[in-house]
């Protein structure tokens, strides 16, 4: 295993590793996707139960989803930093 990492570090250039790191950082998008989907599903349930309140439910859902998006956006910013500042 040690030999494998040594091989990667010596044969590849740091810019490629930075791109790899950007790809790995975007795993953080997984959590925000799950959170947004959960909020959307619950909002659909709420509209089904109480259709006359759909306007308020949609507004609340959008604000909640934007809050859930924050962690994914942090991952995205880190990925952008890795891509654009190396090389």
């Amino acid at each position, binding site marked *: 295993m040690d030999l494998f990492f040594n091989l990667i570090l010596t044969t590849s250039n740091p810019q490629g590793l930075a791109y790899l790191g950007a790809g790995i950082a975007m795993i953080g998008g997984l959590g925000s996707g799950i959170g947004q989907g959960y909020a959307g599903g619950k909002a659909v349930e709420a509209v089904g139960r109480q259709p006359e309140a759909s306007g308020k439910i949609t507004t609340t859902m959008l604000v909640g989803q934007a*809050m859930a998006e*924050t962690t994914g956006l942090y991952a995205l*910013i880190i990925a952008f930093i890795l891509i654009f500042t190396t090389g």
Partner: protein
Amino acid sequence: MISPNLISSLIIIGVLIIVLSVIGKKVSKLDPKEPLKGPLFIIVSGIGKLNDMIQTYFGKNWKLFAPILIAVFIYLIFANTSSLIGLNTPLSNINIAISFSLLAFLIIQVYGMIIRTPKKRMKDLMSPSILLFPINLIGEISTPLAMGLRLFGNLLSGAVIGVIVFYIFPGLLGIVSVIPMTVVVHPIFNIGFGLIQAFVYFMLLTIFLSMAVEAEEA
């Protein structure tokens, strides 16, 4: 060197100052007995709806907070959709995004200091117990920072995806590639995300400001 984002931001600010002051003059001269017509009706009823929403959060002295909140909202609406008319989106530059989080921080702190005196504000920060003071202090700084970074991340990702699509699709599809650009990229990444993010920034600023201003009214 001045970045193009800053130039487009200044253009938007200048146009908005002129147009909105003209509209304000027109509205103040209106006769309240006559029914409104056309674009003025849309503007007046829209501002009225926003005022009603702000009133539900702030109670009786909502008139102190409504102007700055609505001004930020109107600027963000036009700034986030400005790439439709060929300007660079101002918020896709991190300096402008961070300045927006500084703006949110200053609005919340200054209004909090004025409405509730500094002594009471300190008491709010130490609210459950004095041990939580550092954590509350971090919360005061990190929420505005998260608001600015959220705007930055959304608009930068929209810009980057737009650029990628504009580079890749013409080679693949030729003249047909106009369709994905006009039907998918601009409505979703410029209009949809831009307006949603403007509304979200406005809502979060309203909520955090109302929390800072009337923390222990009950």
